[in-house]
């Protein structure tokens, strides 16, 4: 039953992504990449998420986006909500649809309600995940579910490379992964552990996904290169602390939420122009100071 439903669902996702194909917006590629990963996860990784739960996440995210857009009188923009919904579908699990709906609602509304200097403070999917996993046991993440196969990590990274390059944010995942890898390799050397241990951690599909598809979100990273590098490296250090000193397997999410919380302070000294999605095609750096785009 699932076998036949799956290709159909994937085909419709592909069609949906194609609808945005006219515009060279990096988010279109991100949607396509995340949707493909979701299809792969459902088909080959037996993701424990029911179709109704996926439906609830997407419906809540889009409805919240629409409602908030109406309230704040700005243009309705589905792409951002779709990316958030896809990220939540890929990373968050629950016994009932309610926590998933809550995560989607918190994610989208945070964009509109928690703002500083014209930008939203938190990465939407990230704060949705943190909010529901921190305050209830009803939802959880599955850091091991992607496995540690090198080829899968390479595919996720490959897709992420392309998407973040198009969004001019390739530096963010590379700096984050570089810093995180340095820390855990240094730890292994200090402990006298074989390097297969840090390599195992670095091949984790969930970590690669986080690096290329969550922390790299241009709207919630500083605009200047050096502040951004500091942000990515700082998140790596916080992740390391959460994972190895507080034994939180999903430490990367908490690390990013904390980093986002201090980001407005970084932005205060950051003179680089604000990021605009539509101007980021072809990997060109955005040099023009843009107005706040519709979310």
């Amino acid at each position: 039953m699932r076998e036949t439903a799956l290709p159909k669902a994937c085909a419709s996702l592909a069609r949906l992504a194609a609808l945005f194909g006219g515009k060279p917006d990096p988010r279109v590629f991100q949607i396509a990449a995340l949707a493909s990963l979701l299809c792969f996860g459902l088909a080959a990784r037996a993701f424990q998420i029911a179709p109704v739960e996926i439906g609830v996440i997407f419906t809540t995210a889009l409805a919240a986006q629409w409602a908030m857009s109406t309230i704040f009188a700005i243009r309705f923009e589905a792409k951002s909500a779709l990316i958030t919904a896809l990220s939540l579908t890929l990373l968050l699990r629950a016994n009932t649809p309610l926590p998933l709906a809550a995560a989607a609602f918190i994610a989208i509304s945070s964009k509109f309600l928690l703002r500083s200097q014209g930008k939203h403070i938190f990465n939407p999917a990230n704060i949705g995940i943190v909010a529901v996993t921190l305050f209830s046991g009803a939802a959880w993440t599955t850091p091991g579910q992607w496995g540690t196969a090198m080829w899968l990590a390479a595919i996720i990274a490959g897709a992420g490379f392309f998407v973040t390059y198009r969004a001019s944010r390739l530096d963010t995942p590379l700096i984050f992964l570089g810093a995180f890898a340095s820390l855990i390799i240094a730890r292994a050397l200090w402990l006298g552990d074989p390097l297969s241990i840090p390599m195992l951690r670095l091949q984790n599909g969930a970590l690669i996904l986080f690096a290329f598809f969550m922390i790299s979100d241009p709207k919630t990273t500083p605009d200047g290169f050096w502040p951004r590098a500091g942000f990515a490296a700082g998140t790596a250090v916080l992740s390391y602390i959460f994972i190895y000193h507080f034994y939180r397997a999903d430490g990367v999410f908490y690390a990013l939420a904390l980093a986002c919380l201090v980001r407005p302070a970084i932005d205060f000294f950051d003179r680089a122009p604000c990021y605009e999605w539509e101007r980021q095609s072809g990997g060109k750096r955005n040099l023009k100071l843009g107005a706040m785009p519709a979310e």
Partner: protein
Amino acid sequence: MKRSLKKTLIVAASGLAAVAMTGGAVAFCGFYVAKADTRLFNKASKVAIMRDGERTVLTMSNDYQGDLKEFAMVVPVPVVLEEGQIHVTDNAVIDHLDAYTAPRLVEYFDEDPCLVYERMEMAAPMSSSDDIIVTAAKRNKGLGVTIEAEYTVGEYDIVILSAKESGGLATWLRENGYKLPEGADQTLGSYIRQGTKFFVAKVNLKEQSKTGLKYLRPLQIAFESPKFMLPIRLGTLNADGKQELFVFALTRTGRIETTNYRTVKLPTGSNIPVYVKNEFGDFYKAMFAEQVEREAERAVFLEYAWDMNWCDPCAADPLSNEELRELGVYWTDSADDGQPITRRRPAPSGGAQDVFVTRLHVSYDAAHFPEDLMFKETGDRENYQGRYVLRHPYRGDAKCEAATDYRASLPKRFEAEAQTLASLTGWEVDDIRRKMKNGGQTFTPPPKEKWWERLWGTGDKKVGE
């Protein structure tokens, strides 16, 4: 229409002995250390983990079969344990847990096709091995490390060690005549740098003889630690090939899973040929090996996840509150202590015990599992069990039109069962077909009725089986 339930069968445990060795045997997370040149061997172990917040109770059961004098077990522990935190329990408790969570074979008997189909299922637990033979190990005085505490608990002499320098413990063990596997210094050094203490248990022969038992009982330790993990690295050092580890987690919220390795559900619910009943043990081992292979030998397998209040079908009754408390479930109501729970059918959710059991099975070696198993408790309370189905075709004499169709459909069904079995286990499909034919599951379709025979009846032609 008449509804009837056919006889149900419990698969004989005798056929499962082979599985018992892997499925039910012993396990612990340390390693055996040989004192002389004796090659020691720990291939399979069972560990029950009660985990609630930071509270942890580990119950480590092993299938050590060598000389008791040679037995030594080293387990990295996060804190120095007081005497009251160490306990020796009975094999029966962990064996019961093993039996309760074991993958099961269920049988259905096809009804007379001329009547309505009705099925009933029953479970057969894979028996678990009780043949644990243990020996004692001689104690030696320590050098080069701090002896934090020494206790004799049950038949064990226990030393809690800490070391400041890398390799300190290895030195101590070597100077005391223990043979350490290659690479032990490095691994011990890593644990020492992480501030880990070491729990070293040996058998006190005098105390052991007082127990009158021929095997070593499981050791238990209770402690608090934010780290939810099971150290397996030492165990990979002296292992001869891969080791089997069974982890039984008793938690409050839901299923556990590993965070640094993938946790994969074993295929379940498949219809397989009926002859497998006599070789369920071989089947299960072959299937497990095949799935391990398919996951590139890097996965941890989920074999059971269930609310402890009930089971369906039950391989064994759920554990009593008394047994659960023995395994560290401190929150169970002691009001009905000692009362075995016999609810076999769905109980209301959110039962009084609030204990969720997860059974994980991992076949590991240093190459594929370089790091200790790191766990996480999830909120997932979805029930899962390893369950394999035998469907016996109807053998009676049925003569209606439905019976003809039914018989005609059987070869296709048998072929599907053969293919499923081949896919699950990697066995040759031709061998499977041959065994099925020998067992009466024939692939030859019954002779087809000619169209004209329907006009004037079948005459002297009898519908074959």
